């Protein structure tokens, strides 16, 4: 698959096809659902063709009655056949439901995702039960069950990674859970599936499934506070972050005063594949563009466009954020 790339590079535009598709299952659960779907698609198509063929035959036929007596024809075709087919389907679907909803078990990776208008707050449970905060991106190890609990801070959102599992709604006042076991490495995309207002269309995120060691290392890095800037440019960027009051909305662990909870945690924003919740690739250029014109790129989102910064400051700020790996 073209999109199975290493976690450090961005998903390339020319290989994005299929990263958000039900047809590219990458977990036991998504596989099972696709298998069931394929069966019913095939059976449904066959039945459709048969019924249309019957209709055509009825139109063409010169005989003035169906192959059987009218009532018998209706009883068999309209009642008995669907009743039997559907009862088989009922058992089949219940078994698949059971399979895909079974609990994740003890060794599961536990993640809590909170929906916001229009981004995703992500909390990992560290090895010692501590909370490790990130946003708009999930990293998952291969072949280990994952349990994701979801809720919402504002309106209803729906958490959906087509390649890994079905949807689960994020509802204020409710905590829902979804479990799945990824089986292949790669970058996937998830998107909000419940209409959540103005920027519902631009509420997405990336998921990186990687080998266990890489995942562990990633999680350990995420648990660390932000690195101290060394070169002057980065120092200037950090200063701009403080001066502009970015910290009242965004948290950067390790930077005094940057404890905001309104926007995404930026402690390791430089390591992320995307900014603006899956809408732009994570790069210094996009960061600069986003800071300067977030209201143009994603109108109505909660972050104002910082178009009052001078060029050098903007560059410094973007560079500093990009350096937060």
């Amino acid at each position, binding site marked *: 698959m073209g999109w199975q790339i290493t976690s450090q590079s961005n998903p390339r535009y020319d290989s994005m096809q299929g990263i958000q598709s*039900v047809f590219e299952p990458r977990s036991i659960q998504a596989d099972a659902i696709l298998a069931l779907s394929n069966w019913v698609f095939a059976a*449904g198509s066959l039945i459709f063709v048969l019924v249309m063929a019957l209709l055509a035959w009825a139109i063409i036929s010169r005989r003035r009655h169906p192959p059987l007596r009218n009532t018998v024809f209706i009883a068999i075709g309209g009642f008995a056949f669907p009743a039997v087919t559907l009862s088989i389907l009922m058992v089949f679907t219940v078994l698949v439901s059971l399979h895909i*909803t079974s609990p994740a078990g003890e060794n599961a990776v536990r993640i809590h995702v909170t929906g916001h208008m229009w981004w995703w707050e992500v909390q990992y449970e560290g090895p010692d039960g501590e909370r490790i905060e990130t946003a708009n991106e999930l990293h998952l190890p291969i072949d280990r069950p994952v349990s994701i609990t979801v809720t919402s801070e504002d309106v209803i959102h729906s958490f959906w990674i087509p390649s890994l599992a079905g949807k689960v709604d994020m*509802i204020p006042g409710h905590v829902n859970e979804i479990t799945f076991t990824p089986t292949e490495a790669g970058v996937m995309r998830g998107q909000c599936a419940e*209409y959540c207002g103005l920027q519902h269309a631009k509420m997405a995120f990336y998921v990186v499934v990687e080998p266990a060691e890489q995942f562990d290392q990633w999680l350990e890095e995420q648990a660390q506070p932000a690195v101290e800037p060394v070169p002057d440019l980065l120092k200037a960027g950090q200063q701009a972050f403080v001066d502009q009051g970015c910290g009242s909305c965004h948290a950067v662990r390790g930077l005094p005063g940057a404890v905001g909870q309104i926007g995404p945690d930026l402690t390791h924003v430089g390591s992320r594949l995307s900014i603006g919740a899956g809408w732009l690739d994570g790069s210094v250029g996009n960061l600069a563009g986003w800071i300067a014109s977030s209201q143009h790129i994603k109108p109505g989102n909660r972050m104002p466009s910082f178009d009052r910064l001078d060029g050098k400051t903007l560059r410094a700020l973007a560079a500093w954020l990009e350096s937060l790996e």
Partner: protein
Amino acid sequence: MTFRSARDLEEADRRDPGLRQLRSTWAPPKGFARLKEINNTFIGMLYVLTGIFFFVVAGILAALIRAQLAVPENDLISADWYNQIFTMHGTTMMFLFAVPMMEAIAIFVIPQLLGARDLPFPRVSAYGYWAYLLGGLMVLTSLLFKVAPDGGWFMYVPLTGPEYSPGYGPDFWLLGIGFIEVAAIAASIELIIGILKFRPPGMSMDRMPIFAWYMLVFGFMILLGFPPLVLGDILLEVERAFDWPFYDADRGGDPLLWQHLFWLFGHPEVYIIFLPGAGVLSTVIPVFARAPLAGYVWVVLAAVGTGFLSFGLWVHHMYTTGIPVMSLSFFSAASLAVAIPSGIQVFAWIATIWSGPGVLFRAPMLYALGAIFIFVAGGLTGVMVALVPVDFQVHDTYFVVAHFHYVLFGGAVMPVFAALHYWTPLVTGRLMSETLGRWSFGLIFLGFNVAFFPMHLTGLRGMPRRVYTYPADLGWDWLNMISSIGAYMVAAGVAVFLWDWLYWHRKHGQVAGYNPWNAGTLEWHSVTPSTNFSMRSVPIVSSTYPLWDEPELGDRVDRGEFYLPDSPDERRKTLRTGSVMGEPRQVIFLPHPAWSPIIAAIGTATFFGLAIFKLWWLCAAAALVIIIAGIIWMWDAEPLPAPNRYDVGRGETLPVHINGADTHGFWAMALLLIFDAAAFVSLIFSALFLWTVNRDLSPPVPEAEPGWALAAAGLAVLASVFFRLGAFANRRGSMIGLVLGPLAGLPAMFASGGALMGSLFDAGISPTENAFSAVYWTFAGWTGFHIGVGTIFIFYTLARALAGKVTPERRQSVMNVELFWHFTTGLALVSLIMIHLWPRVI
């Protein structure tokens, strides 16, 4: 002397005084006063025109949607606009087109199909129509000012709640749609009673035109399916206007409550739309297959069965909300089971086609066959989305968009076009063009499949619904482009249809004459365009397809051989028959054109319009207008000629006025109360639901003096007893008793309502505190509202009594009001149980 053409009718008019009387009795007022007309033919025609108008508006919105989505990252339409547009597309299609359009067709055609002169309550039809028109325009206006609702047609909270939608958008939706529901309920009561009681003699249940069966089920479904939405609407509007936290998770409310209430309505709604469509197919297919409908009883079973099962599907819109998978599977089961009646209908249609001597491919039949194709495909994807695991993936994606457009286009839009092609000659006297019909059908059918088939794939490839734009390169671009092209083909097809329907065929269409399709049902028994009174005489029917089985019937009807062939007293009237067997029971004197329905409708529109802007005092003034118009409207009810018999022809006489539970007035009250009760049960459901979802909060026990509650209960029962005594006294001829009973009952009822609210005050329960206290106050408010309405009823009855209009022989209005009061007493008692007993028991 049969009316094969309009000229025959004119000639007969000169020779035949009975016919002349009928024509002048039923002639609509001239000029501007024509708006007073309440006859179903006129109102039905306006209704259909209005329905198509809203369809076109919603279609234009769809075209805008498809223009925006044709290419990725398009900025033709801003996010803000797009969200208003897709919300209004869904809202308009569902509430302003689909349901009213089916009512419109039924209002126009059902009386003719049933050999009735009109529906049971023509003024209610008129009121319903004007309410629908004004309410619809009110909702659309919001679009002009760019303050249209933008929360989706499903209006999920909390997005549409006071915090996240502080503007007027949701209020336009809630009040506008709430208002239109009034029209829907009016039509449903009208149709149920019309179908059950206003059939021609001899038309027993097993001979009813199949369309009437479908519309009967449709009526009952509206009656039981709309109340949850009405309640949900009220609760949301109250939350928005007065901060009662029904849906606010922070105060014990729950956003899922809205979803339950919405889909308790919303799923039956889909079948409310589909059943009349299927009814049209079951009507049109036999005509063009030239054979009676195969398996009539099977089709009836399918319609009735669908009606029931459709109430067990609502959670299948909520599979992803975190409900236990066991519960989901129950709904999956019902969703699969409901496929069986659909299968039965499809096979009945195929068998019908098979039994005929060959299909006539006229435009209505083309649309019907296209409908079968599209509907079967939509039904099969319906089975797919009914499966819990599959739905986990496809829910809220373009797959679902494809699915329900297939169902609704196949189940409703194509049948509506079939119906318009088929029945338009009844209005215009001319056939629509076959050539243009083929073009419009071809464009619509092809265009539809081009537009919506790719969406299955778009959805499976991961595209969610309701996004105003999407990134390039996810594999959705070309699929969307194809869909957009298809959508514009549909638009072209609709344009061809409109050109033919509105203009071409009226100028150049072939004159339809007598029974142009050689159909078997009564609406084609005579001249086209059909007359306002639909039947020269009300026939005796002896089969399902009277015109096929008795070719002479039309002539005999036109010769006036049957019932009510003339109208010497110049009063509009029709025949009422028994529900099951169809034996003649009563002559109904129908009302004549009047301004009161339209004034009441304007008053209602003003009321809802002002409520959007929270101008409560002006609302009260509008309410006063409604009440006054209503009283004027009802003042002359219960005509009682002396003697109370009317010569219906054929040497028979029937009573004009009767009292009792069999009258159409009593049925109307009873059906209205069933609707009311269903909404009240939804409120009880809401209370129980909030109780099961709350972990930290249980329904608070109102710590009030128990005397309050006991007094309220006792007084309510006492009021009922007083009223019973009053009604009893009236029956015995005691005017004093009639006046004293209600007058004694009224203070008792007020005291009861007061005690009910007093118990809440005493316990210090404030409606804004938490969801349960809000629910308690809603119970109290619901009861209080009924006490208020009941008071108006009482004073109205007393006024009538003083005017000598209530006597032992004319006691129907007293019976109706009494029924209402007992119902109110019931509400008070159940409210008390829910407020004071239930929280203590659990």
